[in-house]
């Protein structure tokens, strides 16, 4: 509400005045209105009563005139009403309601109201009508009726209102005057106080005091203000004095600071100091370089932000050294294996310690953290440790000795070979383990060592703790100190007893292996020879059976018993089949038997062309399509590769699906080998038979697809004969891919 706001913003003096004036006016208005209404009510009650009395008196006085029906006397009685100026008119009715006498105020023309049945006062807007029965000896003989003008009441009310208004005005004026006086007693001291405060703040003169003019709350306020100024004045003067002292101290401190910063800047360790809160106050150049932050950014940062450290193994954050120092109030060295994670994320192993900074009174003011990059040291330690562990875990004896021939170190390998423990032997002479002939060689060796020579792998005999002699191979080299002087010799001795024995055993094994290889080759050869001869010699009688059963059929066609003919057919059919089997067996045996061992450069493109020619009938009949990469030339038997390709392609045509066969021959060079593949879209092979298809005479199909089952066995034999491998990848119903490899060495440059 704007009204409320404007009231809140008013000066106090206006607030006071308006409050008082409004309060006074409201009180007067309320009480005036109350009195006015009370008066109007009481006056009307009084008027009714008065009129009742009046009508009773006039009625009583008219009794006689009514009784005697004397209008004149009645008229006189009514005439007395003239004294009451507000009575407008009056009438006396007879019992039969005829008028006996009437009265009218001068000039009034209003008629008498009719008589009522009993006593009655009836009010209208502007008048009251009073009806009063006149009774004689208990009998009603007539009625008096009066009409009273109410204009009197309005007049009275108006007068009252005016009076109240006048009182209101006068009292408001008085209230305003009074409040104006009051205002000066409250606001003036406040304004004075404010003025004093302004003066103090502008002039910074803390000797100004506010004037106290009363003992009330404002007086208390002024006292408090003055007291405060007193305090400020005291502090201010103290500060001024301190400032002057500080000027001199500052110059001195600046010198000291400069000196310290120069010192810290030039030392090799990283130094960071923090304040008591753990925020970085200073970092020297080494520290900045290690953490990887520029100087301008580190100041004021939390130490943990800049100096982020983790445990090297657990990778968990390490407690901030500053927090630890502040908590324990003592110097702390950080745990080993601390990694500093630099700003760019790289990691540096560090060694560090932190200490509290105390002032003259011993109060902790901050901390100082000193750390250094230990990468190099760690690397050196690592190398040393590794070398030590190599020496310690070596199977060979690694022995140190000084130039007088005393043992100075002795590893586990030495313990194993010679039987002495390190504790037993260090400090004793090398002659302890000397074999019989060692007395002769040792001085010579030491002399050569002293010249800085290295003596490699000479063999000798040494004596173990148990007295046994061992064969050792020894290398001796000089040991130098930091200044490059020879201070001793290191000996590496290897027990070669076992080695000698191993070599012998190996030779025996090799001989045995060779014998068994030879016998294997022999039996293999015998087997192949057997297969060859057997199949060859079996052909002879078979040929007889075949041809003579053909002759029988030819010679006796017509007159022979049909059953006899059928039997002859069976004989010739069986013979034919046997013929095929033998031919295949022979072909198979021949591959290994190497009837003709003259391999020559064989252009597989030409081989393929010949195979296509051989299979022309089958290709034309099936509508087969052949696509082939350019094939290499290899050192091989032409006939064997014809057999290989002819079997693979022939199979692809033979085992075709409902679609015309599509055969794709690809070649790929791989490391150390050439990979060939013959892929078809035929009926495929079920997974369980993928291996079996290469077994000789193993067939997956019945007589409806002709064949002896030797084809793939021949393929396998050919490929393996050339040091390759053959296998098939297939899925029933999704074609087959026969893959074979040849060693890359089989390839020769093609001449075109």
């Amino acid at each position, binding site marked *: 509400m704007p009204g409320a706001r404007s009231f809140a913003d008013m000066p106090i003096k206006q607030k006071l005045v308006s409050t008082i004036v409004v309060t006074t006016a409201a009180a007067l208005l309320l009480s005036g209105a109350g009195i006015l209404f009370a008066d109007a009510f009481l006056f009307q009650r009084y008027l009714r009563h008065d009129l009742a009395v009046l009508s009773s008196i006039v009625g009583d006085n008219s009794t006689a005139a009514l009784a005697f029906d004397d209008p004149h006397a009645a008229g006189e009685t009514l005439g007395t009403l003239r004294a009451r100026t507000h009575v407008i008119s009056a009438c006396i009715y007879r019992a039969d309601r005829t008028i006996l006498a009437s009265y009218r105020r001068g000039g009034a023309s209003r008629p008498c109201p009719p008589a009522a049945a009993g006593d009655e006062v009836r009010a209208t807007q502007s008048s009251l009508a009073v009806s009063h029965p006149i009774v004689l000896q208990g009998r009603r003989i007539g009625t008096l009726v009066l009409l009273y003008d109410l204009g009197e009441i309005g007049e009275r009310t108006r007068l009252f209102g005016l009076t109240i208004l006048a009182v209101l005005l006068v009292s408001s004026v008085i209230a305003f005057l009074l409040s104006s006086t009051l205002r000066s007693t409250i606001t003036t001291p406040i304004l004075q106080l404010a003025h004093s405060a302004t003066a103090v703040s502008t002039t910074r003169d803390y000797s100004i005091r506010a004037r106290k003019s009363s003992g009330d709350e404002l007086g208390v306020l002024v006292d408090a203000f003055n007291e405060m100024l007193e305090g400020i004045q005291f502090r201010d003067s103290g500060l001024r004095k301190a400032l002057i002292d500080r000027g001199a101290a500052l110059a001195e401190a600046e010198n000291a600071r400069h000196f310290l910063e120069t010192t810290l800047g030039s030392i090799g360790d990283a130094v960071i100091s923090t304040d008591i809160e753990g925020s970085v106050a200073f970092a020297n150049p080494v520290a900045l370089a290690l953490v990887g932050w520029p100087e301008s950014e580190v100041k004021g940062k939390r130490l943990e932000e800049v100096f982020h450290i983790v445990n090297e193994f657990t990778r968990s954050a390490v407690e901030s050294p500053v927090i630890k120092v502040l908590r324990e109030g003592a110097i702390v060295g950080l745990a080993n294996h601390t990694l500093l994670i630099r700003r760019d994320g790289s990691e540096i192993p560090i060694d560090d310690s932190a200490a509290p900074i105390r002032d003259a009174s011993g109060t902790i003011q901050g901390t100082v953290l000193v750390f250094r990059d230990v990468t190099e040291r760690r690397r050196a330690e690592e190398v040393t440790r590794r070398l030590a562990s190599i020496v310690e875990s070596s199977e060979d004896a690694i022995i140190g000795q000084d130039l007088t021939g005393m043992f100075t170190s002795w590893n586990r390998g030495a313990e194993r070979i010679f039987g002495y423990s390190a504790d037993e032997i260090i400090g004793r002479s090398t002659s302890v383990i000397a074999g019989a002939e060692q007395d002769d060689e040792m001085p010579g060796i030491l002399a050569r060592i002293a010249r800085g020579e290295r003596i490699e792998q000479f063999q000798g005999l040494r004596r173990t703790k148990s007295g046994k002699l061992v064969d050792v191979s020894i290398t001796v080299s000089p040991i130098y100190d930091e200044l490059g002087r020879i201070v001793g010799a290191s000996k590496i001795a290897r027990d070669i007893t076992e080695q000698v024995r191993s070599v012998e055993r190996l030779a025996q094994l090799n001989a045995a292996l060779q014998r068994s290889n030879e016998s294997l080759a022999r039996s293999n050869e015998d087997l192949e020879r057997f297969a060859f001869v057997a199949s060859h010699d079996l052909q002879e009688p*078979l*040929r007889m059976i075949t*041809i003579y059963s053909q002759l029988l059929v*030819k010679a006796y066609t017509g007159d022979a018993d049909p059953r006899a003919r059928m039997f002859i057919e069976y004989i010739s059919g069986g013979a034919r089949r046997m013929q095929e089997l033998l031919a295949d067996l022979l072909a198979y045996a021949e591959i290994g038997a190497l009837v003709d061992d003259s391999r020559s450069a064989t252009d597989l493109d030409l081989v393929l062309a010949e195979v296509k020619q051989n299979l022309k009938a089958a290709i034309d009949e099936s509508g087969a399509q052949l696509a082939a990469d350019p094939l290499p030339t290899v050192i091989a038997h032409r006939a064997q590769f014809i057999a290989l390709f002819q079997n693979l392609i022939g199979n692809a045509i033979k085992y075709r699906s409902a679609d015309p066969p599509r055969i794709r021959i690809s070649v790929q060079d791989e490391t150390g080998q050439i990979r060939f593949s013959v892929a078809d879209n035929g009926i495929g092979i079920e997974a369980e038979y993928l291996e079996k298809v290469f077994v000789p005479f193993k067939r997956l199909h019945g007589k409806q697809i002709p064949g002896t089952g030797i084809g793939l066995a021949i393929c396998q034999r050919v490929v393996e004969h050339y040091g390759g491998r053959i296998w098939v990848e297939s899925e029933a119903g999704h074609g087959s891919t026969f893959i074979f490899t040849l060693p890359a060495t089989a390839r020769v440059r093609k001449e075109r």
Partner: protein
Amino acid sequence: MLGGGDHKARILVVDDNPGDVELLRMALAEAGVNCDLTVLDNGREALEFVQGRGRFGAAPPPDLVILDLNLPRNDGTEILEAMRATESYAETPVAILSSSSSSREQAKVEGLRVKRFIVKPPDLDKYMRIGVILREVLAEERARGIAEG
């Protein structure tokens, strides 16, 4: 008809398998070759025949020798070598009738001036064609003899 007429060709057959000899006879007959066959069924006899020893006395060299390589006692190669070492047989035409198609067999007779190397076929019709081949050899030989006078 070639091989027919007045001259009856004399043919020496060395084969230990009577079945083959019978078939050979049929093949020659079917090819219309008019001939006398002398059949020997082992290597030793064949060797004696060529060298004019034993029961064969001084039999004249035949017009054609049909030789099986796989023979008992002395094999075909041996006989062929003996023939080429004998003056009267040095130029006698020889057809090898082998039961083996192996290239090794062929290599054995390399350089021994063989006219035909025939592999005994496992089929009657093919076998019968051998007669035709032998007829050609005889015809060639006769033509050469006429040419040389």
